[in-house]
């Protein structure tokens, strides 16, 4: 290892730890469910949203919304010339997040049979509504990943 490489390695090591420490508070409020953490752990810069959906059972439109939030929080780098897909800037461990301690997000209930039940479900299951609403608009974006 050359002197330059050694110096750059040291610089990276210090910066990563400092940045992870500075991001911890934000990370804990953004990555607040088991599924979100699971999705975050898979962001290697190569994986597609469709593959993440298959691996985690989280709908792709939801993944797309989560990724936007994670990029805004500075926890994920968007696709660029080096990575075709989103890339987590830290590991969960660096952010002090333990998968086992996170609660699972509420699962969407099956579509109710009566109209009154459907209305009630729509008001109590916002995540499912968002998933459905964004489903078509996000699909085209996912194909480009």
């Amino acid at each position, binding site marked *: 290892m050359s*002197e*330059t490489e*050694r*110096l*750059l*390695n*040291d*610089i990276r*090591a*210090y*910066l*990563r*730890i*400092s940045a*992870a*420490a500075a991001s911890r508070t934000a990370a804990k409020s953004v990555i607040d469910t088991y599924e979100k953490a699971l999705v975050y752990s898979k962001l290697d810069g190569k994986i597609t949203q469709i593959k993440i959906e298959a691996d985690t059972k989280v709908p792709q439109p939801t993944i797309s919304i989560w990724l936007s939030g994670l990029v805004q929080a500075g926890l994920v780098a968007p696709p660029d010339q080096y990575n075709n897909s989103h890339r987590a800037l*830290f*590991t*969960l*461990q*660096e952010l002090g997040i333990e998968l086992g301690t996170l609660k699972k997000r509420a699962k969407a209930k099956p579509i109710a049979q009566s109209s009154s039940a459907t209305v009630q479900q729509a008001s109590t299951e916002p995540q499912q509504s968002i998933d459905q609403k964004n489903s078509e608009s996000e699909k085209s974006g996912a194909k480009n990943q």
Partner: protein
Amino acid sequence: MEQKTSEQTEILREILKWIKFAGAKEVKSMLLATLDNEQKRLIYHLSDGDHGSLEIAKAAGTSDTTVRRHWAAWARQGIVEPLKVRGGERYRKSFGLEDFGIEVPQPKVSEKPTDAKLTAETEPRDRP
């Protein structure tokens, strides 16, 4: 050309010095929280890229599996870096414990020190 490289290296040294100054508190805090017993501190200290997991396990009085398990966890925390070697992968510490005033425990093996570095390794890594 050589002079330019030398200047760039000097600039990198300067950058590293200030980054160390700014990040020392966070790094020390991370090391203390992660290396919470003597055995972990010793395994970490001996993880210099020259010693394999078997050697380190022997010196720390534990198993090769434990050393590798710690390495994997520490890599996820960013305090060691992977190093490809013939026949596998080792991990090298990213920080010297001495640089943060963290005491380095003595290796447990003493009856037959096959590697002088294991018993006498107290000098800090090449750091300013």
